[in-house]
């Protein structure tokens, strides 16, 4: 029963968060769910789309919903606008000579926070991008000989414009691999578009007066809850099959790694929780496969890039669909 209560509590919190985000940014619930999934899976998320589709607003809304007064248990939110002339030091911080103490002291950069919005990440030079690497993967920053631990909760939301646009530096594969999910934002549908136009003044208003609904402890609690979500052995097999099928396919030059498989499992659990379930389903598998895997793979042809993953996924879904219900695993 304790478990149920926890779930109930977690559910309510997630629900509150989703609703809160919904007040500011309309018609983007699936994207909001993905963002929360990344947060609960202890990962990071990359949002890609054309300018003006609401990426930044989404990130800011999330940040505002969970940040607040640090003393009151709120989280620290920082935002960095990436530009071509940005230097790694601008992110990590610098050693400054203290006149009084006659020594160098470390001035922490914006990375020392709980929620980081890395806006237009692909506008920065590769060296800045790689500076993010360590902190995203290891939750720590090394400056010279000193290693600084980041906060317990470090969640990076990065946005980027499509690679094809001018003045961008494509993210290297290693960098992309650090992002648990990469989602496309897409335009709102016709009705939502109209609704947004009618109340465009409200967006700023809502953003300014957004409520903090989750505390730092709440998020840590939810992250623990996500890890406790049950995943059926068949679905683990399915993840394995999908990952391996990318390896044997000659149209994929860079297949999915083992880490990506683990990431997939983490995201599946988190997503199930976001969806209010204690177990992972085929639907989760299908919904998450592309956001989790697609940006990690390098395809040989454009056709393969567009369709191949779906094909492999469908074969696995087909297998799962025909599978009879197994007896409860001991």
């Amino acid at each position, binding site marked *: 029963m304790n478990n149920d209560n926890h779930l109930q509590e977690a559910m309510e919190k997630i629900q509150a968060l989703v609703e809160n985000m919904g007040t500011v940014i309309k018609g983007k619930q699936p994207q909001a769910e993905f963002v929360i999934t990344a947060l609960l899976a202890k990962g990071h998320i990359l949002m890609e789309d054309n300018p003006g589709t609401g990426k930044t607003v989404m990130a800011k809304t999330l940040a505002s919903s969970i940040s607040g007064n640090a003393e009151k248990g709120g989280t620290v939110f920082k935002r960095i606008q990436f530009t071509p002339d940005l230097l790694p030091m601008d992110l990590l911080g610098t050693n400054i000579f203290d006149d009084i103490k006659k020594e160098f002291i470390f001035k922490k950069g914006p990375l020392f926070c709980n929620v980081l919005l890395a806006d237009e990440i692909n506008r920065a030079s590769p060296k800045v991008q790689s500076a993010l690497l360590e902190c995203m993967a290891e939750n720590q920053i090394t400056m010279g000989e000193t290693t600084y631990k980041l906060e317990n909760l470090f969640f990076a939301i990065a946005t980027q414009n499509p690679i094809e646009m001018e003045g961008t530096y494509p993210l290297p594969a290693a960098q992309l691999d650090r992002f648990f999910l990469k989602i496309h934002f897409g335009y709102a549908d016709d009705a939502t578009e109209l609704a947004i136009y009618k109340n465009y003044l409200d967006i700023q208003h809502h953003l300014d007066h957004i409520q903090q609904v989750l505390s730092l402890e709440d998020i840590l609690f939810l992250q623990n809850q996500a890890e406790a979500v049950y995943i059926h052995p068949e*679905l683990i097999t399915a993840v394995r099959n999908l990952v391996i099928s990318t390896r044997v396919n000659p149209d994929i030059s860079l297949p999915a790694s083992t880490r990506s498989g683990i990431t997939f499992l983490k995201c599946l659990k988190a997503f199930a929780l976001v969806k209010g379930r204690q177990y992972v*389903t*085929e639907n989760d598998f299908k919904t998450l496969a592309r956001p989790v895997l697609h940006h990690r793979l390098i395809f040989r042809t454009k056709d393969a890039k567009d369709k191949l993953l779906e094909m492999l996924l469908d074969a696995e879904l*087909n297998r799962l669909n025909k599978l009879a219900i197994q007896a409860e695993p001991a």
Partner: protein
Amino acid sequence: MKIGRIHKVNKVIAQSILLGLPTMALVGWFIYTGNNYYSILENNFISQTIYFSVGLMGAFIFYAYKFRFVTTTIVLALLLSSIYAGIKNIATGEFDAFFASVHFLIFSILFLIGWITGYGFSRSKIYTIFWTLFLCACQMILVSKTSDIKATAIITAFIPVLFYTFYIIYASALIRNAQDSIHGLTWYFSKRITGFFSLLLLLFIALFYLFQPEFKAIEKEWGGGQSNEGEKGGGSSKQQSMTHENEDGSVSNNNSMSLGGTLGKNKKLVFVAHLDNFFPDSITPNPLYFTSDYYTKFDTAIQAFEIDSLMPDNDLFKPNPSKIPLYFAKTDTSVITHSMASLDRQVVNAEVYKVLLSPDVFIAPATAFFCQPIGVPPEFKEQYKSAYRAKMWVSRLNSAYFIYNPAGNQALEDFQEERFQQLRSITNYNHIDKNFLSYYTSMPSNSDYDSIRILAREITAHAQSPIDKIIAIRDYFLSKDEFGQPLFAYADNAGIPGLPSASKLNYFLFSSHKGYCAYYAGATLFMLRALGIPSRVSAGFITINRSNKNPGWYWFYEDQAHAWVQVFFPGYGWLDFDTTIPDVNTIQSPQPDGTPPLNLQQPYFVADGKIISVDTLHKMINLAVNKLLFHDENFTSSIPVNVKLNIALASISRDTGIVTIQSLKENMHITAASYAESLKNILAQKGDSMASVIKKIIQPVPVDEIKIIDDVMQKNQKQQSNQEEKSFNKRQLIKILGVLALLLVLLILFFPFIIWFFFDMQARTAPPGNRKAFLINRSLHFYFNQFGYSRRGMSPYEFALSIDRQFGTKIITFSDLYQKMKYSNQESTLEENEWLRPFYESTKKIMKEKFSLSKRINAFLKLNRTFLFFKNIKTIHYE
């Protein structure tokens, strides 16, 4: 030039062993057979097979490296053709160049075929189909080359090809689809191929057993099973005489016995005869043609002459020797009267020993009137099935030498001239019966026949007497054209039994000038009748004197079947005339003649009657004797007299050959003959009746020969029942096949529905629980798939959403529940389980409302959707 990935080594090895070796073996066999028929191949099939194999294996290995096919093969073909051109130019002697280049051409063609095949096997999906079709076509050409096409030959020729066809299509697909990742590839292949082979073998055996009766029938029809079993030969002869209404087919027990047609090339011994006819020096044998039938009446329907049993003054004696009890004679002296010949006639004895000749047939030189079946001497029993003695009323003028074309033989010409002189006394037919004359000279008149009439008159313009006219016609066939070449030639054509029709004869006379005996006889007949000379065609056997050691013995082979003309001369009767021009190939049978079956046995006791009882243990039978022949004296009795016979030494035979003692049954009609010396001294007295004679004999009588006589009724019944059974079987088979085909079509048509029915039933009847949820899910998926709503590319939720939006169902709820049941670690609740049933029923109801009956029927006829539903999506693909 390279594309894709390289084949694994074990795959190439599998290809070479599983595909390469059988292909090499079959192609080697083909090349071997081909060498027999095509001289260009020069009989070195081993090296030719090696050429092919090198090409095949080379392509296997080469294309394992994923080279492109078109470019490499074009390069290869260009290379070969340039070398070919080079050989042509370089070689010194003209002859050498020819052979070198031809040899090289054969090499290149075989090598390229092997090369393309190797590529096809290793890379193309559909190549095997083309390849096997090509092989079947090759085999057809090869089979058509064989001179005597028999059912067994065809089957033995095609079964390996068919076997190979099935095998290669299966095996190549198996190897192509085998995944490199599979461990234990050898085990995998051997398992599958063994399974496939056993299945194929089973299929062939089943087919063979199922169609064995049909197969045998075909075999008979095609003359494939010319076995020694008398049973079979007799059976076919009965059918023959049935179907051909005693037309020429009855001459033999074999269909191939046409009037000297092509099939007569078969050098099989038909019968052996002893003819007691000698020239006045009583040393030189005087052979006579053996007649079996006369063609007398013109049938306007088929525009040809045919046999007419109602011909005026029928002098044809046609008993059925198998119906006459052994040693009992049948005589018809009315034949002698009907022959209307009083001049130069004598009685000649003949003995005929049958080999292939049907037991029902009586054949003897013209105007026979006596037939007595005799026993075959024991040492010849294996060779000759039955024998009879015949007597005939023969004209001294008749002789094979007389009716032969002399063809330059001076002695023969003199002999003939002497006899022609005798016949020149007959100058007209004024004094014979008008009906007789008009029957034997009748001939329809229309343009076809008028041209024959004109030709006949032209040829015989200078001849006065009938005999001169006949000679003129014979000489016309022997005449030479303006270039000194013979005008007419003997040609073997596949002949239908019976005489050729008028149009064919016209073609023969005026255009082709080529034909076999029936053409010459038919044409002569028309011309003679056109000239008002009574004549008929006689069909039978030409008699050739080959045996110097055994004068009077003649051997008759199948190719001696013949047709010639008989002409009526008042006072002399019907005389044979043969106008067929000589053909060395057909008349000379190369076989040496065998030992004549000299019959020295004298039957002292011949009893004819019904068996009362058989004692197979002591080899005794009790016979109720109706007729008795004792020392050539005939005794008959209205009351059958019982005789005990010892059959321990008897040879028992039927029409069809020797049979065992077990064939003797009660109530059987048999004739028993005894040559026992112990009977020699017992003589019948005058006034003895049958009973008193039998009393004198010590019983049991040792019998040497027993002949079973099948009653006509019995025979007919047997035959009829056989035929009925057969036709019934055929009809039944067709019916069964038809029903099976219909069922198959129905099954295929209703396949989706049957599956739906099964799924639905399972889903409905399953007890509530996880299993039921699964079954409902499967059933619904199948149902929607059949209507074109496939889950392909959608998650269960997305699929359910699309369905719900369209039809207002509640699949989403179900889908979520199902996912929970399937993947959660929680037990499903009672309410959830209870909810499943009404949900399923209501969903089906909604769907029924949404789709009209016609739409549903239409949906359930879509087979392709069903197949797609069950098809697994391939995850791993190459290239």
